[in-house]
């Protein structure tokens, strides 16, 4: 995480509050699990949360920013700020292991391995979040939200969402 000037305990508390905000589209994941919460800065007593969007057009970002402000206000941090940064660009590599486990439990296959160029023409091998089989096939590159693809399991015949690598 980047530099801060404030008391580390205060910053830690502000981080914990902001980190409690969940992705409105995948409510089992917090924005810390996702890697969307990048930093907490405190200057002159004002808390600033730094977030980064998953996709350029992710419609959840406004909602997330609003919920961070509300959470910080409720926790006693007056007039908090939320700043969106684009660089470095978000990657699924930032998702925590705990976050991946929560996704799987929720019925969404977590991103496999590293992002990077494999997205181009490489084929992912995705395990079914329901039965664990790797006998799966992609139905569509694009799913119910920008970050997911639609897959199906040939073993248990269930369709499922896959959080794709970027």
């Amino acid at each position, binding site marked *: 995480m980047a530099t801060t000037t404030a008391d580390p305990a205060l910053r830690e508390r502000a981080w914990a509050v902001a980190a409690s905000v969940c992705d409105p589209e995948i409510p089992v994941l917090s924005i810390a699990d996702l890697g969307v919460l990048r930093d907490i800065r405190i200057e002159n007593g004002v808390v600033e949360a730094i977030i980064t*969007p998953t996709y350029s057009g992710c419609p959840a970002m406004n909602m997330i920013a609003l919920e961070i402000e509300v959470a910080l206000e409720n926790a006693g941090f007056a007039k908090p700020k939320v700043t969106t940064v684009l660089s470095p660009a978000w*990657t699924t590599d930032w998702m925590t292991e705990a976050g991946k486990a929560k996704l799987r439990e929720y019925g969404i296959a977590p991103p496999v391995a590293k992002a990077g160029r494999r997205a181009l023409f490489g084929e992912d091998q995705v395990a079914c979040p329901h039965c664990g089989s790797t006998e799966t096939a992609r139905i569509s590159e694009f799913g119910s939200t920008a970050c997911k693809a639609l897959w199906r399991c040939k073993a248990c015949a269930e369709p499922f969402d896959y959080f794709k690598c970027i």
Partner: protein
Amino acid sequence: MTETPLLQYTLRLADTALVLGHRLSEWVGHSPVIEEDLAFGNMGLDLIGQARSLYSYAGEIEGKGRDEDALAYLRDAPDYRNILLVEQPNGDFAATMVRQLLYAAFAHPYFEALARSKDAMLAAIAAKAVKEMAYHLRHSAEWIIRLGDGTEESHRRAQDALDELWPYSAEMFETDRIERALIEAGVAIDPASLRATWDKTLDHVLNEATLERPRDGYMQSGGRVGRHSEHLGHILAELQFVPRAYPGASW
């Protein structure tokens, strides 16, 4: 026009992303299958998201207080700087996918290069966009292969679309005085340097699809300096109606 080169350049990128994003959004609710409805919605959202970042930056460069909404909703067609390819009508499913392939095969390496721009904001926007365009390229390439190497009818429709849209492909590789200065400064990308990559992608996909690459003949141009086909006016009429009819409306 008193736009600086950087402003013009940023608006070209923004307008191209917005107009294509709007075109894809027109499919929502009309796609042949639900999966493609979702795909068009998602791809459109990526492009409109890229456009929003670019417009916000253009507003900053201009420094006259215009925000992303003012730039998207309150400029007329001659002020739009998008390439002509993206304003072409959706046609059938094959035509939309051909247009998407022609653009994505260009935009992916373009943003990859622009991510190394000396302009930090353009580099940041490009670094996000390149990841998104990778999926647009894979999706459209798979569909073109499926359609071209599919039934007699899907092959014919894909080939017709390719022949129809080919004359709009050259504009992507053009540069003019405005961009040359920015290219020399390491801010903009020389699109001619991406031609070989684009050719290779197209040849690979078209070969798999058993489609014939059209011969380069007369090529359309002019969108980036504001000379548009009749289609852009119709797009803007729909896109801009609400903010123009009800200025400052919010909900």
